[in-house]
C-alpha cells in the first residue's frame, strides 16, 4: 500500500506528518502530566502532613493485585512496542496480533482492578461515616486512592478503545500500516502505563519492607 493513502492535509509529506504527530502527542502528554501532577501535589502535601495516618491507611491496600496489574501493564507496553516496530516493517499480522494482545492485557488490568475494588468496598474502605480506620486522616489516603486509580482506569479504558478502533482501521485496510497515527496511539499507551508505575509505589509500597 502506498504512503499516499496515509498522508493527510495539510502535511507536505509523510515524514513531516510523522514528526507532527509526535509533536502533537507529546504536547498532549505534557498537558496530561500536569493533570495528574495536581493529584500528586495533593497527595504529597497530605502525606507530608500526616505520615502516620498514611502508613496505617496504605497498609490496607492489596499489594498482590497492584503487582499483578503492574506486570500486566508492563507486558502490554512491550506488546505495543512490538506492534509499532512490526508496522514500520510492514508486518501486518504481527502488528494486528500485538495490538490485540495490548488490548487484552489492558482489559486484564481492568478486570483485576475490578476484583480489587470489590474487595476494598467489602472491607469498607470507601471514605464515609463508617470508615474502619483511625485517625480520620486515613480517609484522605483512601480518597486519593479512589481518585487516582479511578482517573487512571478511565485513561486506560480510553486507551483500550483507541487501540481497538485503530486496530480495526488497520484490519479493514482503511489506513496503511505505515500510518504515522500509530506513533500517537503507542505514545499515549506508554504514558498511561507510566502513570501506573508512579501510582504503584505511592499507593501500595508506603512503608512496606
Amino acid at each position: 500500500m502506498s504512503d499516499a493513502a496515509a498522508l493527510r492535509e495539510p502535511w507536505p509529506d509523510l515524514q513531516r506528518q510523522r514528526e507532527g504527530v509526535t509533536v502533537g502527542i507529546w504536547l498532549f502528554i505534557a498537558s496530561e502530566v500536569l493533570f495528574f501532577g495536581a493529584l500528586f501535589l495533593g497527595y504529597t502535601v497530605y502525606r507530608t502532613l500526616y505520615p502516620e495516618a498514611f502508613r496505617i491507611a496504605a497498609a490496607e491496600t492489596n499489594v498482590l493485585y497492584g503487582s499483578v496489574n503492574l506486570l500486566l501493564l508492563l507486558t502490554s507496553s512491550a506488546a505495543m512496542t512490538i506492534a509499532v516496530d512490526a508496522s514500520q516493517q510492514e508486518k501486518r499480522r504481527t502488528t494486528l496480533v500485538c495490538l490485540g494482545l495490548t488490548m487484552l492485557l489492558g482489559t486484564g488490568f481492568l478486570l483485576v482492578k475490578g476484583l480489587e475494588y470489590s474487595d476494598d468496598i467489602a472491607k469498607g474502605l470507601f471514605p464515609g461515616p463508617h470508615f474502619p480506620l483511625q485517625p480520620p486522616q486515613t480517609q484522605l489516603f483512601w480518597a486519593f486512592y479512589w481518585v487516582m486509580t479511578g482517573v487512571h482506569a478511565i485513561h486506560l479504558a480510553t486507551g483500550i478503545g483507541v487501540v481497538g478502533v485503530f486496530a480495526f482501521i488497520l484490519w479493514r485496510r482503511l489506513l496503511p500500516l505505515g500510518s504515522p497515527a500509530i506513533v500517537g496511539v503507542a505514545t499515549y499507551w506508554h504514558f498511561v502505563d507510566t502513570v501506573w508505575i508512579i501510582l504503584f509505589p505511592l499507593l501500595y509500597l508506603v512503608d512496606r519492607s
Partner: protein
Amino acid sequence: MTDAVIGDVAAETPPPSYLGAGHTLLSWLTTTDHKRIAILYAISITFFFFIGGIAIALVRLELMTPQGLFLTSDAYNRLFSLHGIIMVWFFLVPSIPATMGNFLLPLMIGANDVAFPRLNLLSWYLYVLGAAFTIYTLISGGVDTGWTFYAPFSTNYATGYVIAAAAGVFVVGFSSIATGVNFIATAHMLRAPGMTWFRLPLFVWAMYTVSLVMVLATPVLAMSLLLVVVERGFGLPIFDATRGGDPILFQHLFWFYSHPAVYIMILPAMGVVSEVIPCFARRTIFGYTFMVYALIAIAVISFMVWGHHMFVAGQSPLANLVFSFLSFIVAVPSAIKVFNWTATLHRGQITFEAPMLYALGFVGLFTIGGLTGLFLASVPIDIHATDSYFVIAHFHFVMVGGTVSAYMAGLHFWWPKITGRMYSEAWARFAAITTFLGFNATFMPQFVMGWNGMPRRYHHYPDIFQAWHVMSSVGALILAVAYVLPLVYFGWSLLYGRRAPANPWNATGLEWQTSSPPPKENFHRIPRIHAGPYRYHASDRLPMADDRTPVRPQGETP
C-alpha cells in the same frame, strides 16, 4: 510578502472562496477548514457574550439602590456567578485564539490549515458540549459559588448545580487544550519556506505563547474541578478540614490555572494590537525582538505569581513576599510592550480608523489595569483592597478594557478579510468611542468605591456608595449600547456591505496577500517568505527581487 507571489495570484483566475466551498448546514458542521471553524466559534462565543452580558446587566440594575430592586440575594449570587463563569470560560478564554487565531494562524505562516484539522473541529464540539452543561446549569437554576468554585463552599454548602457547572468548565477546558496543542504543532511544523521564527508576526507569537500556557495550565484547573466534583458527589474528603483536608489546597490548584488564565486572555490581545498599531501608524513595530521575548517572559512568569490571589488566605509571610516580588516582575515585560506600542506611534502617520481607535483604547485601558495590578501585588495595599470593587475594576480594565477592546480591534481589522465585505466606518468609529467612554464610566467609579470599602459580591450596601453605583450602572448601559451596535452594522455589512479588496488597509502581513475572503486552500501555492511581516517604511518597499542581501534561510534551494 513577495511581489512574485502577488504576481502569481493576480495572473490566474481566482478560485472560489472558503465561504463558497459548500452552502449546507452540514457542510459547516462537518468542516475541517480552520476558517470555517473560526466562524463556528465566533457565532458560539458571541451568543455567550450576550448571555453573560444580560446576567451582569441585571446585576447592575439591581445595584441602583442600596436595598436592591427586584432580585433575591440568592438570585443575585447566581447571576454574578453565571456572569463570571460564562465570560471567563465561554467568551474570554476562547475569544481571540479560537476565532482570529484559528482563522489567521495558518494564513500568517503560509500554511493550508492547522496541523490537526479534525482535532480542531473536535475542539469546537467539546466547546459545544461544555456549553450544553452550562446552559443546563442556567436553565435548572444556576450556581452560586462565584466563578472560583472555592472549597469548602462548593463541596459542602452551595445549593446550586455545582457539578453541572464544573462539568461544563471541565469539558470546555479540553477544548482549549486541543486548540493549544494544534497551534503549537502548527507553528512548529507548518511554517512556509523562509518563514523563520523571527519573521513571524507578533500575533503568531502571541498565539504560540498563549497555547503553551493553555496546554500547561488548563489540566490543573480540570483536576481541581474534578476533585470538587468527587468530594461533592461521592463524599471523598479531599478538601474537608474535619478529616484533615485543606481547603487552601483548592485555592492553590485553582489559581495555578487561573492566574495564567489571565494571561491566556491578555496575550492574544497583545498580539492583535501589535498588528493593528503598525498598520495605522504606518510604522514598523518598534523593538520586534523585545516584543517576542516579552511575550515569552510573560508566559513563563505567569506560572509563578498565583499566590498573589491568596495574600489573605493564610499563606506564610515568606510566600506572600515571594509572590508579591514575582508579581512586580511580570509587570516588566508588560511595560516593555506598552512602551514599544507607544514608540511605534512616534513619528507615525497615524490614521484613526475603527480598529486603530479600539487598539489605542486598549493601550490606555490596559495600562491603567496593569498599574492598578501593581497596587494589588503589593501585600499591604492588597490586604486593604482584597475582595473590594477595586479588584473588580482592576481586572475588568485588563479583561474588558484590554481583551474585549483588542477583540473588537481585531474583528474590525480582519472583518474584510474574513467576510469579504466592508462595514460602515462611521458607525464603527462611533461604537469604538462609545465603548471607551462607556467602559470608563462603568469601571472608574468602581475603583473609587472599592478603595473606600465597597466589598464585591454584596447585594445590599451602605447609602454612601449609591452615587458611585448609579454612575457605574449608567456606564454599563452606554457600554451595552456600544456592544450591540457592531452586531447591527456588521450584520448590515454582511448583506449590503461594499466588496472588500484583498488588502483594504494597505497592510503588509502575509494574510493580506491572498484574496478576501481567502480561497479554501488559503494560497494558490505555498508562498516563499523573504522578509518579516512589518514593512511599512519606505526603505522596505523595494521589490523583493532587487533585494541583494542573502536572506535565504538555511537549507532552502533558490
